[in-house]
């Protein structure tokens, strides 16, 4: 394997030594560009008390290109589709090499706290969210119960 850029080593070291509250990111032993990630559902959101698994991969072009991130845990959210793909501008057109793994994961945590049904990826969920917000939130809470790890 090609040697790991210094930037990735530094980011990894900081993620371990100074972790973000509610977020873990652990590099895979065999491939240091692949991270197993967990994000705690933000307090007050339908995802509260759930811990969600994600995977994050740093492509060869990183940091010129954004990390690839997706949810492994099933989640009911207007900006996350059934394949776990996330609709977040900084992962697409608004990526900048001044952002980093840490800021990406914080943005995903923020997206859980404030879903944006007007910029949907999962169209049916977004529709549900706009038509019947309370019902959609209840469903999101049910899915959190069903599929996420329990926080204790």
């Amino acid at each position: 394997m090609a040697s790991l850029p210094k930037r990735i080593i530094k980011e990894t070291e900081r993620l371990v030594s100074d972790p973000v509250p509610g977020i873990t990111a652990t590099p895979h032993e065999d491939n240091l560009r692949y991270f197993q990630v967990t994000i705690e559902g933000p307090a007050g959101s339908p995802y509260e008390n759930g811990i969600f698994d994600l995977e994050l991969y740093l492509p060869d072009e990183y940091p010129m290109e954004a990390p690839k991130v997706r949810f492994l845990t099933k989640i009911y959210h207007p900006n996350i589709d059934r394949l776990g793909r996330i609709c977040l501008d900084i992962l697409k057109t608004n990526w900048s090499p001044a952002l980093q793994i840490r800021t990406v994961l914080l943005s995903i945590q923020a997206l859980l706290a404030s879903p944006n049904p007007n910029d949907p990826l999962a169209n049916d969920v977004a529709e549900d969210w706009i038509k019947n917000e309370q019902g959609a939130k209840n469903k999101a809470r049910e899915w959190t119960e069903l599929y996420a790890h329990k926080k204790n």
Partner: protein
Amino acid sequence: MESTDRRNMRTQFQALFDTLRDPQSNSYLLELFASMIVSPELQEEWLNGGDSNKVKGCSQEFIDSLPRVPRSEIPLKESCPICYEKFGDDEYPLVAELPHCHHYFDVQCISLWLSKHATCPLCRDVVNQKTFDNIDLSKAELEEDWGMYS
């Protein structure tokens, strides 16, 4: 194949992809099928509204014309925001300053970014709305070669 044919086919595929992803069809299998026939890169582009095609970088001429920071003014203890290397760790640091915002980057790092984008990585200012006419380009190229081998 003619490139216009290729474009047409691409448009048709994109339409098919959009149809299969239509919430009215509401079928997981169809969605999965749509994502299987289209490469992940294209999917991202299309999910994105297909506008990543329109994102244009800066011209090589513009990139070459970026002001180089004289060695005496380079903050040697600061790091390049792209590669995280300290400017001072390089024996012959080659640092560029962006026109409006005065942010500093390694010439090599910012050149790579600006070849595909037109914004400052730090403040997202559009950088290429003004060029620098008073820079001797032949000299800039020479310096770049020197930088690569230093």
